[in-house]
Structures are given as C-alpha cells and as structure tokens.
C-alpha cells in the first residue's frame, strides 16, 4: 500500500509546561521550509503546567490547512489521555506511544499501526542530566517523525538551530543529539514503509509562518500606534507583549526616546479610559483584550460613540460566555460589540481573516477610528491570534496615515466660527481640534452628556435628536470607508455562502468539497460592519445564502437580517461552536443536506 504524500494530520499529545512547544515548532518549521502547506494548532488548557495539551500539524498539498477532525498519526506522551488518544486515531492511522507510559496495552487497537518507543531508554543514551531529560524526551519524537515521514534532514537541523536561537551551545548540542537518537531508533526499528510521507514542494516560497497576534503587533508598529494600555488576558496578552518587544527594538527616535507609551493598567475598564484620553489628544491609542475585558469596556465604548473620540480595541475572542473556555476559540462577541453600551449605539467592527490582515489592520483600524472619530473593534480570535499560519510576507505600508478631520490653529484662523460637532461637510463627520491648539476658537468641552454642535451643554430635545441623527448618518458614511467584502461569484449560482474572520481559512476546502457534491455557491467574505452596498447586492443575487459562523446564535446572520430585513428570508445559518476551530465537514454536510432537501 503506497504511502499518502503531503496529506496527513499529526497530533502530539503531551502535558503543558513540559517544553513540547519547541519540538512541535521544529517539525512545523521544517515542513513549512520544505515548501509544503502546513498549519499548526495548539490545544492547551487554562492552567500553567501539568494538564493535557495537544499540538496538531496538518500537512496538505492543496493548501487546506484548517482543522481536520480525523487524526492520521498520533504521538502519545501523556498517560492521562492515552486511552482517549488511542480512540481518536483514524482507522489505518499510526498510534506511536511512549512505551514508558503505564496503561492497559489491551486498549491498543488492531485497526491502527501501533508503534511503541522506549523514550526513557533513548534519552538515557543521550544525557545523564536529570533536569534535561524531561525536555530532551520531547526532542526524541522530532527525530522519530522526521525519519518516518521523510522530512529533509538539513531543513530539520536548520529549523532546530533557529528554534534554539541564542541558547548556549551545549544545550543545543544535546537537543540535536536527542533528535538524531529518535531518527536512528525509527530507522532501526520501524523498517516497513510508513503510510504518511512528505515530499518537498514549492508552495511556501517567499512566505512566512506566523501567528495573528504577532502579525498584529508588527502592524501596530507600522500603523503608527503611539499608545497602548492593556490588561493581561488569554488569548490577547501575546499581542501586547509582542508589540512591547518590537516597539522597544524598532521604535526609538533619533535621540533614543520611545515613540510610544505602553501601560499595563489595573483593569480593562481603566485601560479603555486611558485609550480615550490619549486618542482625545490626537495620539493613535489602542487596547487589546478578550471577551471579559470587552464587557468591562461597555461604559467607555458608549462614551467614545457619543462624544466621538477615536479608539481602537483589539478583541482576540475566546469561547464565552463569562470566563468560559479561556483557551478555546469562538466568534461569539459580534452581537454584543455591534450595539455595546446602553442607548442607541452602533460600532464599527473589522474581521481579519489572516495574519496578513492582522498586520494591515494595524494601520486601517487607526485610519478608520481617526477618520470616523469613533471606536473601531477588530474581532480576531484565539485560533487566528495564537496559532501559526502561512501567509505572504508583509509589505511595509506606504499609504499615509489618515488622521481624519483635524482643525489646526492655522485652518481655524481661516474660519469665521468653529463648532466641534458641526456637520460642515454633510457626511456626518465633524472636525475636531486637538488639546493644546493655540487658537481662541480651538478649546471645547468634551462630555458624555447632551451637547450641541458647539459642544455646549444642552438638554434640548431637538438638539439631542439632531445629534443622534447625525451619528446615524456618520455610521452610514462609514460604509464607504470600511474594507469592502471579498466576493467570488459563481456565475448563475442561486446559492451563496458568507463567512468572515478565521472561518475563511477552511472555506477553500469547503468549496472544493461542495463542488464534488454538485454545489458551487458564490462566496462572500465579509470584512467589516457596517455592511456596504456589495453585501446587499450579493444576498439579493442569490436565493439561498448560508452564513457560516463560529457561535451558537448566528450573530452575523442576525446583523445581516436586521440590516437587510427585506432579504432576511434568504439567509440561513451554518453554525459551529464547540470551542475548537471549524472543520470542512461541519460546513459542507449541512449545506449539502439543505440543498438536497431544496431539490426534491
């Protein structure tokens, strides 16, 4: 039976805090550097050490690297989950396990290729330092996998060296020896042909393998972020910490000063208050958090909307509600953020679908916030933010910053009068002056209570309604500024599919499987709220439109329904919401079933 080439899922079951992360990265990096499309996902627990952790690597020649449920090749290193790991392997798959683990060998299945490996013995052959043993154990399986699947030895070595970075030579040496020991063991003991092989391809030239949070941090450096106030929370902390790292290195002014300020606030509520204060002065200010932090920012979000102060809020969504599953993913904060805060509020949302867009929105979010003078929420999620994705190299942005409508002392002196909340251009967006502007007409009073066009306090019902109507007009104007959807129409198709954010990663695979089932829908990826004209046109030009999202209540579908109620009957939900990233079948099966039902 000849082996499957460049198409399998490797799943490593270990315990967190055991250093398996670097072994997994070496394998992932090597495959990527062999030009093979690869995706890596870390399924980690919400504690620091000792609980089950799985790292899955999907290799797929066609570039389908979203989550795939069935597992071809498992490496079982964790006694606590060995029974479950045995069950999860696809029939005909490979179950390799650490022979030192204590478990009932009768559990081993006869429809899988079971490979016992004496890790302790192999490690003992490499080192006598007890402290090192725990970490070297994980390196052994790097060698085993490389040998069995045919990973290029030189590429593997280079990846290992990169991974150990500046660690001292002896440690690097021991790790490499452990890898080789694993490879040697495999070569010597597992002679029969291995069912899953890799072969170099050329699908990753000029690309990088990066997580969304790091990409976002780079994007903020280039997007002109000068103020970040944040509070630690999984899965958003790595974005803030990456920005702190890059800013310290690359954001020094000529005279060695920092062109930024980062504050770890006492909580998310204060963090959002600091953002509004800094944005009010004209700085590009943002915060990054997850669901629980967004809830604490509700009151200030309403202030940003009504007093029209720019703000960028990065929400790396996790499975809610409440504390929920801090280390699982979801797209569950959409309904909440769309109208967050009491009263008539509507907020701008961006839905990045790749590290590339996480990078680009580092500037786009600020441009929109300063242009529209309101809060812009960027809804990433744990899967996109913390897992590793192949993406084109980011190009340094050339588009100048859009600082929005700012009235300087010079421009003021050409005006007869100035009203902070005057709709002088008719697009609903007023001009603002920055604190410190030395001109008698510049200063104004910012408040969250009733105010007129001159920012004076008023309780007048006419003025209050006028301001609310202008804010609605401004939100409508936003449609012309926010990123338009990406549409791939299938000529003549009566069926459309809508997805957004990280769900997009599975959509190529979904559409190819749908095609095999005789369904060739048009596809629209929504990138922002409010929805512009193209979104309406797309829905209108199809009879049935499936809205695919990773939450229980069909939150995007509800927004589309409210916006285009005349088209609501065409919309149907395809929902996946168990905290793990969506996989192709979860989308294909319901659509095929519905379309089949449609036909007869």
């Amino acid at each position, binding site marked *: 039976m000849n082996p499957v080439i460049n198409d399998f899922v490797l799943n490593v079951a270990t315990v967190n805090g055991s250093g398996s992360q670097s072994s997994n990265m070496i394998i992932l990096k090597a495959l990527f550097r062999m030009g093979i499309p690869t995706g890596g996902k870390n399924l980690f627990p919400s504690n620091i050490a000792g609980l089950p952790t799985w790292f899955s690597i999907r290799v797929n020649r066609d570039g389908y690297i979203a989550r795939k449920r069935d597992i071809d090749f498992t490496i079982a290193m964790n006694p606590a989950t060995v029974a479950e790991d045995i069950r999860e392997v696809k029939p005909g798959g490979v179950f390799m396990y650490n022979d030192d683990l204590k478990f009932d060998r009768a559990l081993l299945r006869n429809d899988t290729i079971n490979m016992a490996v004496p890790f302790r013995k192999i490690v003992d052959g490499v080192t006598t330092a007890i402290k090192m043993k725990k970490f070297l154990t994980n390196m052994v399986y790097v060698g085993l996998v490389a040998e069995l699947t045919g990973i290029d030895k030189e590429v593997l070595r280079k990846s290992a060296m990169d991974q150990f970075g500046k660690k001292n030579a002896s440690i690097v040496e021991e790790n490499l020896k452990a890898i080789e020991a694993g490879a040697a063991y495999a070569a010597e003991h597992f002679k029969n042909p291995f069912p899953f092989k890799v072969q170099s391809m050329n699908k990753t030239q000029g690309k990088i393998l990066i997580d969304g949070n790091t990409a976002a941090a780079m994007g903020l450096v280039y997007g002109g972020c000068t103020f970040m106030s944040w509070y630690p929370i999984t899965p958003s902390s790595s974005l803030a910490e990456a920005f702190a790292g890059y800013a310290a290195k690359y954001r020094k002014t000529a005279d060695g000063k920092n062109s930024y300020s980062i504050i770890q606030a006492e909580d998310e509520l204060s963090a959002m208050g600091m953002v509004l204060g800094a944005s*009010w002065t004209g700085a590009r200010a943002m915060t990054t958090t997850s669901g629980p932090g967004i809830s604490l920012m509700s009151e200030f979000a309403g*202030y940003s909307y009504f007093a029209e102060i720019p703000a960028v809020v990065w929400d790396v969504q996790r499975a809610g509600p409440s504390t929920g599953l801090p280390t699982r993913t979801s797209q569950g904060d959409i309904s909440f953020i769309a109208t967050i805060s009491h009263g008539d509020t509507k907020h701008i949302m961006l839905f990045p679908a790749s590290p590339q867009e996480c990078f680009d929105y580092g500037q786009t979010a600020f441009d929109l916030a300063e242009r529209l003078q309101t809060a812009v929420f960027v809804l990433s999620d744990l899967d996109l933010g913390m897992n590793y994705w192949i993406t084109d190299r980011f190009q340094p942005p050339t588009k100048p910053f859009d600082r929005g409508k700012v009235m300087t002392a010079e421009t003021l002196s050409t005006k007869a009068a100035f009203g902070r909340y005057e709709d002088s251009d008719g697009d609903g967006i007023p001009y603002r002056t920055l604190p410190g502007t030395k001109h008698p007409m510049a*200063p104004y009073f910012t408040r969250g209570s009733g105010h007129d066009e001159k920012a004076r306090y008023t309780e007048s019902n006419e003025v209050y309604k006028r301001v609310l109507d202008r804010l609605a007009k401004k939100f409508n104007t936003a449609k012309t500024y926010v990123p338009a959807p990406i549409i791939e129409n299938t000529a003549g198709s009566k069926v459309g599919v809508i997805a957004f954010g990280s769900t997009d990663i599975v959509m190529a695979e979904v559409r190819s499987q749908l095609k095999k089932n005789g369904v060739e829908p048009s596809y629209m990826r929504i990138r922002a709220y409010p929805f512009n004209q193209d979104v309406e046109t797309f829905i209108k030009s199809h009879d049935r439109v499936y809205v695919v999202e990773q939450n229980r209540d069909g939150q995007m579908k509800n927004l589309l329904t409210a916006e285009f109620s005349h088209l609501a009957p065409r919309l149907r939900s395809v929902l996946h919401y168990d905290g793990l990233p969506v996989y192709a079948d979860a989308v294909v099966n319901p659509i095929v079933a519905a379309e089949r039902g449609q036909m007869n």
Partner: protein
Amino acid sequence: MSEVKTTEAQTAAPAAAKPETNKLGLKKLDYQGAPSTLCTGCGHDSITTHIISALYESGIDPYELGKMSGIGCSSKTPAYFSSRSFAFNSVHGRMPAVSTGVKMGNRNLKLLGVSGDGDTASIGIGTFTHLIRRNLPLVYIIENNGVYGLTKGQFSATSERGAKLKSGTVNTHEQIDLCALAIELGCSFVARSFSGDPKQLVPLIKAAFHHPGTAVIDVISPCVTFNNHEGSPRSYDMVKQHNVRLQELGFVEPAEPIQAQYAEGETKEIRMPDGSLLFLKKLDPSSHDVSNKMAALSALHETRASGKILTGMFYINPDSVDFLANQNLPEKPLANLNESDTRPPAEVLARMLEPFA
C-alpha cells in the same frame, strides 16, 4: 509647548487704571468660565473662584491647561473656570484613567483634575489608588461634601461613621480619609483645605502645579442643600468650628521676587524641582514635619478621633519621580507623531519577519 505667545488681541482698557495682568499678560477675567448652575452658596463654587485665582497668579497658559473631571456637581465645575482650556468631563469615577491617557498623549498639557468624594472614594477608589501608584503628574482636587450632591444627597464613602442625613439615615460604615489613604499609597503631595479658606487653598493649588507627581488636595466643600444641616459634621458652621489650620502658606513662582513676609524659625521652605518655593509657617510648634510620612499619618489618625478637622499641607516629597520620568518619551508629544516619526524603515520589517521565514 512651542514658544508662540498667545496672539489674540488684548482689548486694551484705555481710560480705566491699567487692569492687573499676569506674566502672560492675561487678566483674571480671562480665566473665568461659564456661569455656574450649582446651588447658590455651594462650596464647589468657592473652590472654582480659588482655582481661578491660582491659575491667574501662576500665569498658567489656558491653552496648556487640561481640565479633567468625573461626574457629579463637583465634576461640572470645569465648565465654570478657564473656558479657554480644553476639558474632558468623563464618566463616574474614571477621571484618573482618562487623565493618564491624556498626559501620555500630550505631555505638555498641565492637568487639573476635579472630582467629588463620591466620584473618588466610592466608584473611583480603584483608579485613584492606581493613579497614585503610577504617580502621574496631575493636580487632583477632591471637592468633598460627604454626600452625593447631584443624586440628591446619599452618603458617600468619606462621610463620618455616625453622621446623620436630613432624612434621618445614619452612616454605619467606616469613613475613608482620602488624605491618609493617599499617604499610605505613596502619594508625594497630600493636603486638605476648606472651600472657604482661599489663603490656604490658593497657595496649595499653585504649589501642586509644580509638583513632580500626583498632588492630592482634599477640599471640604459643604453641600448647602443636602449636608449643611444641624449636626452635620460637614456644615459650614461645624467646619469653621473644628478647622485646625496647620500652617500659614505662601508660594513663590521661580521668577517671582520673594517678599519676605515669612517669619524666621518656624517657617519651612520647600524648593520644588523648577525652583519655585512653598513656604510653610507652622501655626503650632508641635505640629508634625511635612516631610515625615508616619508623622503625617499619626496626625491624621489622632485628629480624626478628636472630631477636629486638620487642614493644610500634610506630606510632601519634592524629590518624587513622576510617571513620565521612566517612560522615556520624546519632547514632541505622542499626539503629534506621524509616519515619519513612527514607521520604521522597510528593511526593519524584513528583519522582524526573519524568524518567521
């Protein structure tokens, strides 16, 4: 701030005696705000008057002043002074957080925060605590009337245990002394004053503007509508009866000549980093040394038990290191940085991406 002097025309008053102006050439009138909508006789309005005096005498440029507040009758007062200054009336209890962002965004703004005792000691005690922990340079005036004026007179967290409202409700909770709390949290400029005592309050406000860090001034400010009744420990009469003033205070700007109106011996001279001087003439030789934190705390604890109300400078450490000091910020405010200041060159991005290739 750039050296551009204010350009707007001075309406010269030809005939009348040339009106007194400060070092900026501004009249006291130029520091007025909109008419107050507070109750007539409210202590807050007196504080506003004294703020105007302090701003005027200090020659603070209205354009460089940022007026920050939370929510309450007290937090409305920024509208009633220096209407040439930008103001940010934020949400209840969060003025310290917004002020932190404002100062980082534009380091050249001198920030004056006005808050109430409810705004600070009840909903805002968390942001108050962490403002002090970070030591943000901010003049923080608490207009303390012991109640929530704007929501019609409920107790706030600073009201004395056992105090009684007109409605008869008695406060059974422990009183929070914001000055003792500030000292314990490490605040390096802590004072208490009274809305009716400009001779004490004005020099304190002027000194606070020169302090390298958070300067807290808790000003007792009677609410004539809800907490000025017989038996209220915060009524004008009670405060006047029990007020024990620690010092005679004087403040001299760096350039100003020192009129030697302070007697020798008992006068302590505190030199602020920019050379301005705060004179403290002890009114009672036994009163504590304002540079001794524990002495200040003991003085506050003792008087609290006695029912007396101690006012004046409690504790000051002019060598305090403010929050900006270790932020390594450029001279040019972050608000004014653009592509050229913030975008690293293209090859930096290549270097950043290197580890991910």
